[in-house]
């Protein structure tokens, strides 16, 4: 093998099934994560064709999108909407029938699939990982090739352990410099998407590197890779280093003893070679960033917190001008206004982008000793998993939130996409730590501003979009 391969090249090479005749490759899949929304039709297809899972042990399931974030003691009975309940029950049935391991609604390990995988050590460096969910890119933080797939592909992976795929291009985004206080991984990735646009990474696997990335914790790296898809890339990657190994060690499903030593030696190789070729290269000075927030209905419409809402004519292409015009109208905003003057109705701290323990700690630190502004109708903290929730409670963080007027909920996707009961009413505006601000994403005619947990917490205090540095 040549010694000028990217990290992506290396994982790709280690997983392509030989003996191919045509041009399309078969990529072997090590880990398959399942949830209730994109799997039922795949299981049905499998059954109709009389097929069985190729390698049972590679699959792991948990319900997350539809589960309620209150009244969980009642288990399945607690799901009010019968259609949602049927979807969760269908996952239970499919897993039981086929023998697929599941962290079900009553299991403390249940949570958002992208929080659960890493937490359990089911996500390991060098793996190929897929899930019927575009934010599977999250797991790339471990130096794993992790990609979202459609339902037909879920069925394909169940049946064959492989994905038919052609190789993507290599893109590298280098972030150097020390982040200023109040600036976090979420600000990094929002500023990247502002620069690349939502299609800038289409057809690419993005490797994030540089001193600003190296300094990040695993939680923060996951936040960055989570939103690689919002830059158009199916997968994001970060090289393996001590931080990665430290996180993975001693997780319930990570290798132990002699296997660990073997794995560790292999994982240390999971970096791009010095002379590796990247089709696209981009550099961002991370030291100069201020906290970022989205203002429009596309994750590329992002501002620094000190900036003013832009006028459509300030954009170059007619496509972007049109997008900006639509956004201003949908979001009910005026060009030229300071983003910090925008008043809010709800606060959502959660989602696979920002619902890990570190996110909750940061938000708690900001909110400690303050109260949620009276104009805020609802402020939610939704931990990413049952274990994150437990950990936060052991640290007493729930008390800080509750004292401030936040609701402390049970784990799930919740208001990130509002498939359960947590949602915005028409016209309401939300400070959200999630990853998508598309029209109606958080509820019919709802308005979303994406930001870090620190900014969400600060914004809760003032009732409008607020620079978190005012409270640090």
């Amino acid at each position, binding site marked *: 093998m040549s010694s000028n391969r990217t990290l992506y090249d290396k994982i790709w090479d280690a997983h392509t099934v030989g003996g191919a005749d045509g041009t399309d490759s078969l990529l072997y899949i090590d880990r398959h994560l399942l949830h209730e929304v994109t799997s039922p039709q795949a299981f*049905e297809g499998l059954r109709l064709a009389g097929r069985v899972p190729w390698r049972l042990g590679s699959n792991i399931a948990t319900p997350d999108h539809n589960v309620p974030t209150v009244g969980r003691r009642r288990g399945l009975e607690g799901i009010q909407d019968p259609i949602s309940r049927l979807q969760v029950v269908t996952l239970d049935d499919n897993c039981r029938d086929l023998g*697929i391991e599941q962290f079900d609604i009553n299991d403390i390990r249940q949570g958002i699939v992208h929080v659960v995988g890493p937490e359990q050590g089911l996500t390991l460096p060098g793996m190929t990982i897929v899930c019927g969910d575009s934010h599977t890119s999250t797991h790339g933080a471990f130096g794993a090739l992790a990609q979202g797939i*459609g339902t037909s592909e879920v069925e394909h992976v169940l049946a064959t352990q492989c994905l038919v795929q052609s190789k993507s291009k290599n893109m590298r985004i280098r972030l150097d410099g020390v982040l200023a206080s109040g600036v976090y991984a979420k600000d990094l990735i929002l500023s990247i998407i502002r620069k690349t646009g939502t299609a800038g990474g289409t057809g690419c696997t993005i490797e994030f590197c540089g001193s600003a990335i190296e300094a990040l914790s695993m939680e923060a790296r996951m936040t960055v890779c989570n939103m690689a898809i919002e830059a158009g890339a199916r997968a994001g990657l970060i090289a393996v280093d001590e931080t990665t190994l430290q996180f993975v060690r001693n997780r319930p499903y990570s290798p132990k003893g002699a296997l660990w030593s073997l794995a560790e030696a292999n994982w240390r190789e999971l970096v791009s070679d010095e002379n590796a070729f990247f089709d696209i290269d981009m550099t961002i000075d991370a030291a100069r960033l201020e906290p970022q927030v989205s203002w429009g209905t596309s994750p590329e419409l992002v501002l620094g917190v000190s900036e003013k809402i832009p006028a459509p004519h300030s954009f170059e292409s007619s496509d972007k001008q049109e997008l900006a015009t639509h956004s201003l109208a949908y979001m009910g905003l005026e060009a030229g206004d300071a983003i910090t003057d925008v008043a809010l109705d709800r606060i959502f701290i959660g989602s696979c982008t920002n619902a890990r323990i570190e996110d909750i700690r940061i938000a708690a630190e900001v909110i400690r000793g303050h109260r949620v502004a009276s104009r805020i109708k609802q402020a939610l903290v939704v931990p990413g998993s049952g274990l994150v929730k437990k950990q936060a409670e052991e640290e007493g963080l729930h008390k800080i939130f509750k004292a401030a007027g936040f609701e402390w909920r049970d784990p799930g996707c919740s208001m990130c996409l509002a498939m359960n009961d947590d949602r915005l009413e028409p016209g309401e505006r939300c400070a959200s730590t999630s990853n998508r601000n*598309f*029209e109606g994403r958080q509820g019919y005619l709802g308005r979303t501003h994406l930001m870090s947990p620190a900014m969400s917490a600060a914004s809760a205090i003032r009732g409008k979009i607020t620079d978190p540095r005012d409270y640090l």
Partner: protein
Amino acid sequence: MKAFEKFTGLIAPMDRANVDTDQIIPKQFLKSIKRTGFGDNLFDAWRYLDEGLMNKSPNERRINHDFVLNQSQYQGASILLARTNFGCGSSREHAVWALQEYGFTCVIAPAFADIFYNNCFKNGLLPIALKENIVSSLFEEIAASADSYCLEVDLQEQRVTKPDGTALTFEIAPERKASLLSGLDEIGKTLLRQADIKAFEEQHTKAQPWLFTDHS
């Protein structure tokens, strides 16, 4: 999957860029455990003036008559024309199912988001990428044309023919083209390579044994 055949169809122009899958089929309709039943809710938030809920019949809804697909001249359209980065966002394959059930066989745009593009081929929907300026001129020609504007789509020849007889060619990966034309079950095709997969697995187990200490 049905084999893809040459056809002539009416084109509907949707002049928007970055159409995301949340718009193509909003999340409340993803609760279904079936593969069908999404056509009435394609572009739900744009097509209707009231909020769409599962099991709400289209007859009870308030129609947005300004929306392109509700205009009389585009009824029966089987080709959708849109601006760049079509299908971005969520991986939901329901977006493809909804487009097909509504009656679309083909989507034309300057560029598509990866996962959506991929999902199209699993279901027999043909995404055609044409250059930005060509797409722009199509929008103009449709707006200027008095009659209904139809295109002939010929996948075999990788060609789209306009009403005036001008042909536009498009690129498509050979294996993707072949799978649409044959309509073959992709899983069945992959399983023909069972021996390769088993051989790979054996070697992979030796190289990375920690991946195979299965929990079940």
